[in-house]
């Protein structure tokens, strides 16, 4: 390369302007280099205040795990955390200020350098021989182009060689073969060995027509017999469907009269009125003087498959579902003896996906609590398969809603209203996806009665059916709305925009007010009067403390309790939202609180149920200990408490109530 500004033969006399510009340039560059040094030092210091990798905090946290009641250690962690964050932001602010100072220095340097160059600028000299070089340049240019072509060919050859070792052809082939293969089913523990499917377990044989209920593909098609769907892989032509009014719905479910029992997630919406007869103390966590254990433990039964769904109780039977990656089933236990009365495998329905759903560990493969209308029990699994069984275990129908797009796995529980099952089927990463819906299926047939689109992304809360001003409403929560629907038609009655982000807690209701909570939004008391009331959906008050991300709030109409996952329990006044008390339980919770009469029962993940008064002051009443973690919400029926642990189902009650 040659300079276009030839150096003059004789040195120029120093010009004051040149000297000043050159000096300014040197000062600027010195300043810039100093700033670089300071920024480098700052960057090194910032590393020691990095909240991303707080090794010391992790160490202290580990110690706190072994000694959870050590308040001094807890305070030390908080102080250290605050110190790290303060240091981090201080270093960041210094870096920002330093960058601007450096930019100013560079600007001065550039200006001074250009001024300096002006003082030394010289017109270029003529170069008569340049014109004669044009042909030489052209010839060299042709060769250089040829060389470039060869380099590019070499790079292409390298790409070709690399492409031969690329794995894309393998998975593309696998993807092409996938649709033609039988859908890998989810078997059951006692499925016949040797059949195809995931890990050698195939879907169970198609139920006989007598016992097999209809199965429906995703969407709005009519249910079809599972045998036909299995044999052809396609649903047969839709057949006339009995209407819900002619489907033989019992009078018990055709009215709004609540069923006796614990018929859905968290039991009756209005709560259990009488606490008398329910235990406030038990201990099954360790060796007991009595060889058979705590006598207050009436029975204990192992549940064949895991699941975080809660037990429901009706007609002397307990129903729950369980699943792992390859098996899933519905179970029925005798409420008196704990004996497993029946278990029914739930195979993957056509349209239910070819792979097990991807779920979080905390969600599991059976997170949704079942529901009953008094004649049938209903279960839903994370791949969108819905099943109905009668109380004797005969399959009535199965419907595949299609694999939902749910970040953690579909976990919303079912609710029943009269002759229909209500499914909050929220999915998609954004409300704009338009995939979320509230769906009503006919309880007797599985036929879709209505489907209302919901303007929310995926959520994990469950719908509740309330009666406000004599009219039934289905109240749902999702980001960012609390929305009420008419359960008969699916028509939206009112909505309130107050929530945000991932919505796990379900709403609760008492005395014309719905309480909805989310940890990034707040606790909101919302007027839930009839749709004709223009004030329906009005926010009465909001609370900002102890907000839950998993546990649902509970209310008795006077008090509202919210439980954060990390152990904070806050009691609000239902009338005005005033915080009455807060208690750090020093435990983790995934189970929701239940108000039974004047007591609140709250089970933690270590299997300890904390019982305290539903009062305007925190007054512990007792505690119950089991030997295993509890994540489901217990059921309270006829003086018995049914608790599902990670592996076992427990029944706790006084001897006299054992019957």
């Amino acid at each position, binding site marked *: 390369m040659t*300079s*276009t500004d030839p150096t003059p033969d004789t040195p120029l006399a120093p010009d004051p302007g040149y000297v000043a510009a050159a000096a300014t*340039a040197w000062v600027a*560059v010195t300043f810039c280099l100093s*700033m670089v040094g300071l*920024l480098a030092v700052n*960057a090194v210091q*910032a590393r020691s205040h990095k909240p991303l990798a707080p090794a010391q905090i992790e160490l202290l946290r580990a110690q706190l795990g072994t000694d959870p009641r050590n308040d001094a250690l807890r305070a030390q962690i*908080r102080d250290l955390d*605050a110190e790290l964050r303060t240091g981090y932001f201080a270093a960041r602010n210094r*870096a*920002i200020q330093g*960058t601007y100072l*450096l930019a100013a220095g560079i600007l001065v*340097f550039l200006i001074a*350098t250009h001024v*300096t*160059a002006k003082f030394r600028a010289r*017109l*270029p000299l*003529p*170069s008569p021989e340049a*014109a004669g070089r*044009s*042909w030489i340049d052209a010839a060299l*240019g*042709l060769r*250089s*182009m040829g*060389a*470039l072509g060869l380099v*590019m060919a070499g790079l*292409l050859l390298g*790409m*070709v060689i*690399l492409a031969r070792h*690329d*794995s*894309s052809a393998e*998975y*593309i082939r696998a*993807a*092409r073969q996938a649709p033609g293969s039988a859908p890998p089913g989810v078997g059951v523990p006692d499925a016949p060995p040797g059949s195809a499917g995931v890990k050698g377990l195939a879907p169970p044989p198609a139920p006989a027509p007598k016992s097999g209920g209809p199965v429906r593909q995703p969407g709005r098609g009519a249910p079809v017999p599972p045998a036909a769907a299995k044999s052809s892989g396609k649903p047969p032509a839709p057949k006339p469907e009995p209407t819900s009014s002619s489907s033989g719905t019992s009078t018990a479910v055709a009215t709004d009269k609540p069923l006796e029992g614990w018929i859905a997630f968290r039991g009756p919406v209005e709560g259990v009125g009488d606490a008398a007869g329910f235990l406030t103390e038990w201990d099954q966590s360790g060796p007991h003087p009595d060889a058979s254990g705590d006598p207050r433990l009436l029975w204990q039964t192992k549940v064949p498959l895991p699941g975080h769904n809660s037990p429901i109780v009706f007609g002397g039977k307990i129903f729950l579902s369980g699943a792992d990656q390859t098996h899933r089933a519905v179970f029925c236990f005798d409420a008196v003896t704990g004996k497993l009365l029946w278990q029914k495998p739930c195979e993957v329905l056509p349209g239910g996906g*070819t792979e097990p759903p991807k*779920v*979080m560990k905390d969600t599991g493969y059976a997170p949704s609590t079942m529901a009953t209308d008094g004649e049938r029990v209903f279960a839903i699994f*994370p*791949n969108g398969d819905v099943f109905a069984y009668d109380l004797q275990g005969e399959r009535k129908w199965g419907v595949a809603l299609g*694999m939902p*797009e*749910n*970040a*953690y796995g579909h976990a919303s529980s079912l609710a029943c209203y009269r002759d229909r099952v209500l499914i909050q089927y929220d999915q998609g990463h954004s409300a704009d996806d338009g995939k979320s819906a509230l769906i009503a299926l006919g309880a007797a047939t599985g036929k879709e009665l209505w489907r209302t689109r919901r303007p929310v992304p995926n959520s994990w809360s469950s719908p509740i059916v309330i009666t406000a001003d004599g009219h039934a409403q289905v109240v749902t929560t999702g980001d960012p709305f609390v929305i009420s629907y008419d359960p008969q038609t699916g028509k939206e009655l009112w909505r309130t925009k107050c929530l*945000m982000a991932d919505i796990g807690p379900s709403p609760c209701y008492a005395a014309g007010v719905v309480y909805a909570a989310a*940890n*990034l939004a*707040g606790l909101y008391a919302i007027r839930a009067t009839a749709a004709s009331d223009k004030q329906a959906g009005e926010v009465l008050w909001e609370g*900002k*403390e*102890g907000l839950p991300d998993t546990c649902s709030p509970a209310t008795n109409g006077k008090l509202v309790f919210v439980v954060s996952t990390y152990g904070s329990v806050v009691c609000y006044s239902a009338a005005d939202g005033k915080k009455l008390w807060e208690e750090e339980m020093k435990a983790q919770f995934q189970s929701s609180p239940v108000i039974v009469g004047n007591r609140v029962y709250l089970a933690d993940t270590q299997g300890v149920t904390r019982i305290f008064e539903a009062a305007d002051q925190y007054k512990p009443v007792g505690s119950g200990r089991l030997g295993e973690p509890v994540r489901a919400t217990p059921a309270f029926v006829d003086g018995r408490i049914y608790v599902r642990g990670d592996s076992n189902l427990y029944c706790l009650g006084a001897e006299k109530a054992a019957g």
Partner: protein
Amino acid sequence: MRSSLLGVLVAIAFASSCRAAEQFPPPEFSQGYHYPGISTPAPRALWATYVDLAVLAATLGLTAYVALRRRRRRELVVVVVFSLLYFGFYRHGCICSVGAIQNVALAAFDRTYALPVAAAAFFLIPLLAALLFGRVFCAAACPLGAAQEVVLLRPLKVPAWLDRALSTLPYVYLGAAVLFAGTGAAFVICDYDPFVLFFRLSGSRGMLLFGVGILLLATVVGRPYCRYLCPYGVLLRWLAPFARWQVRITPADCVNCHLCASACPYGAIRAPTPEPGAIGRTVGRGRLATLMLLLPVLIVVGGWMMSLGRPILARVHPKVRLANRLWLEEQGRVQGKTPMTEAFERQGRPSTDAYREAAAVHARFGIGSWAFGGWLGLVVGLRMIGQAIRRHRRDYDADPAACVACARCYASCPVEHAGPQALAGPPM
């Protein structure tokens, strides 16, 4: 002074690194704290977009007036600094005409993509200006060119043979940008914009090094990005020779002093060429015929080889990268999961979904890779043919395809200094 400059640019590297934003989990507040709501910035108002377009049009007009009519370098520098401040630091280098190529390409190949008005206008207006005034966009309206213009301190002349080889790279970049944008894989021009991180004071470490490297080079080599990488410059090169008003070095007859060519830091001034002899003509014709016969071969071979390398090209697409990784994880060929595969699994979708989507992307790359490879063969062949064609020139003149109308050559021309009588003929 050069070492000082080096230090300053290294300083920029440190500074930008320190400003890089980091994310970390929020504190685990025990109680009493209300998290602020998630806020998303509102889209840029439509009127502001129109203001940007008006500023672009006005800048182009002013540049044309100053460069072609006023012929004042100093005034042009003022416009350069304005563009750097407005389109660079104020608008953060976005949207720019260079990147708008990708929006146009995506709109051309993806019917579901609605081309934003601003992108279309930023793409078209400088091209229209090039048809009228030549590369006035490069002269002062482009913030990328402006950034290089202000740091050029001691320009060195790049040897012509090297310049001609390197100036093929923008064609490659253009082809790649269209391919990746058209297939929805990536906007590589934006992803590898070496200046945008200075405009935004934020960016990755790799891009920082790339940007600092380009700026360091730009202190001694005039506009290395514009000449050897910019894909939009390719389009301007095509249109500028047809401009109604072009840069004329001398306002009157050229005296063949070569001073202008020495003053041009971009090698955009063509020297006079002597008449080739009879032997030279014969050799030249034979070479030209050979190259013209070679052209279709280069196109076919380029397309064929690129189609064989399609899986490597397709890896630029995030769906293909996801499928590749999922497959390797499923096959146990790699250990652990990446955030990308974890996020996919949380969606609860089967991995065959990812494979099918990747297969669709591969199919799109099937046609695209043939076109891209053929394009490369065409470019190399045509540029070799261009070198083999001998044109006779009597005077020094500005190559309208390469000239960025920087107005440096005017001051070097003795005819320019000859007085008003020499400037009787208007340059426009």
